[in-house]
């Protein structure tokens, strides 16, 4: 289960880190967009406020100019004099504001300033003109009119220039307002973009979280199923021999048929079942130790022919009950190998037990040992139905399930898984060849111990 725990942990942390990264980056980006929008809006607001003030001043200024024009046209020169001085002050104030605004809208402000200057120049000239008129000290009315009649175009042209200047000022102010409007639109666009990005990312995160949750649930279910399967294998592989032992003992005690042949058969089955049970318990303990991280192998030089003798003796007892044959010829020239005696005996027991289990009725199990280079190889062959090609990768898995179309399948048990685990811990290797319909051969190779 350790490996699976790591997988689930990795999956969880990748998912969580992914979500956190996406969340943080979105928050930062959307924060940036909002800040920029706010800046633009603030600048634009200040500018609009300033420009509106200027616009108000310019309006006042131009209306004062209009008044002036009327006053001059009506020859009320004393009042006109006052108006001109007020107008002059206002013009100066407006020019000052225009300079401040220059920071924001340089070109427009410069234009504005120029126009205002022009306006105040014209005002000044009107003022001078009026001064001249007054200093003549002539009879109020007739003479002044006469004087004007002599050169009426002079004043008219000044008035035209004043009007033009007024229109240009309005134009400048309108430009500034137009530009601010554009900036407002841009800012709103940014705010919208931030909202969309946030929505999209929240959506993606949600979907991501859902997918993650789905896989976690599936993973948990898979582990649950595997554990269930494991329990079923134990139930099957441990309970069946116990059932046989208890059942046949009961049959011996209570049965009517007490012929030697029958009793022998029952006793052989009890013996075989007890051996199988011990084999299963050993496997369970090895797997349990391995999962608890407490599996220790103490390597030593082992005489494999001794191990084979013992294993074959047990196997023959099982084969007798199954009405099968064991074919084994002792090889007296086997060099010692690096292994642990009890553990390699478990391995051999598992391979023979497996071969008997999947053998044909009245079949034979053949055990052969051979030496090549630095290794000793033990082969266990059955005359069974072979392993289908599609199942070949599953053979050594802990909960492997072979064959069939139906949903529930019988596991092959822990035997081959335990065998592979133990052999590899002893520095050896395990492999198999299989012909469908003909049989399967499992081979274990172990390193030869160097002679001392």
């Amino acid at each position, binding site marked *: 289960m350790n490996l699976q725990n790591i997988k689930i942990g990795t999956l969880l942390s990748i998912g969580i880190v992914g979500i956190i990264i996406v969340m943080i980056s979105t928050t930062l980006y959307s924060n940036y967009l909002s800040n920029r929008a706010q800046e633009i809006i603030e600048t634009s607001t200040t500018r609009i406020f300033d420009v509106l003030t200027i616009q108000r001043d310019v309006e006042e200024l131009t209306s004062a100019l209009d008044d002036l024009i009327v006053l001059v046209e009506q020859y009320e020169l004393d009042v006109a004099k006052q108006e001109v001085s007020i107008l002059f002050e206002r013009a100066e104030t407006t020019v000052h504001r225009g300079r401040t605004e220059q920071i924001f809208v340089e070109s427009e402000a410069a234009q504005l300033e120029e126009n205002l200057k022009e306006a105040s120049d014209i005002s000044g000239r009107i003022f001078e003109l009026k001064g001249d008129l007054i200093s003549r000290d002539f009879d109020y009315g007739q003479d002044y009119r006469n004087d004007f009649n002599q050169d009426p175009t002079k004043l008219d042209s000044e008035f035209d220039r004043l009007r033009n200047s007024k229109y240009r000022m309005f134009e400048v102010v309108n430009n500034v307002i137009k530009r601010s409007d554009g900036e407002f639109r841009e800012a709103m666009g940014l705010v919208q973009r931030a909202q969309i990005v946030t929505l999209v990312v929240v959506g993606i995160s949600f979907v991501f979280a859902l997918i993650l949750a789905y896989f976690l649930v599936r993973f948990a279910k898979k582990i649950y199923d595997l554990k269930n399967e494991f329990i079923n294998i134990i139930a099957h592989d441990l*309970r069946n021999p116990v059932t*046989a032992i208890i059942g046949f003992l009961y*049959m011996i005690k209570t049965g009517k048929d007490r012929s030697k042949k029958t009793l022998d058969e029952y006793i052989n089955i009890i013996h075989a079942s007890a051996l199988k049970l011990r084999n299963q318990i050993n496997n369970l303990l090895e797997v349990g130790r391995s999962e608890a991280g407490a599996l220790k192998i103490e390597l030593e030089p082992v005489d494999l022919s001794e191990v084979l003798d013992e294993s074959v003796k047990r196997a023959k007892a099982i084969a007798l009950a*199954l009405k099968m044959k064991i074919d084994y010829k002792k090889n007296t020239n086997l060099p010692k190998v690096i292994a642990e005696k009890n553990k390699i005996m478990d391995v051999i027991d598992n391979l023979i037990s497996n071969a008997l289990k999947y053998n044909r009725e009245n079949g034979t199990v053949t055990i052969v040992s051979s030496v090549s280079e630095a290794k000793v190889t033990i082969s266990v062959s059955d005359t069974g139905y072979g392993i289908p090609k599609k199942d070949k990768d599953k053979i050594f898995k802990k909960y492997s399930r072979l064959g069939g179309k139906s949903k529930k399948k019988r596991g092959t048990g822990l035997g081959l898984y335990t065998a592979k685990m133990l052999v590899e811990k002893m520095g050896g290797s395990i492999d198999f060849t299989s012909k469908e319909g003909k049989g399967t051969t499992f081979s274990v190779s172990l390193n030869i111990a160097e002679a001392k």
Partner: protein
Amino acid sequence: MASRKHILIIDDDPFIRRLFGAKLASAGFEVLYAAKGHVGREMARRFMPDLVILDINMPETDGYEIARLLRHERKTKDIPVVFLTSEDFSAEAEKAVKEVYVVDYIHKGIDLDEFIKRIKKAISAKNIDSERHQEKKVSDGK
């Protein structure tokens, strides 16, 4: 005495087959054996036993599948089936039992004399499937 009842045991474990077969034989039944699901199904077709004792956990084709196949075939659909298993009875198993209409569900750890009683009961019991059909007809008639 009426002719001996025939019972077919389908189980991949040879010792389990032998144990329950020996007990059934000593109780007067004629026993047939099958080590594989599909072999058992073929034997059920050919010999028409009075009862099929079926292991659930078998390689290749499991007991549920065999029970389902027996039910779906006109010839074998009325043969009562009993599950004999070493698995503990689960909610999943209960559901599957209802789906395939087995007469009984017997644990392998059962006392052998009790086992014979249950088998005798099962063999005389009407097929749950046909009972259900009758019930359905009655309720439909109302």
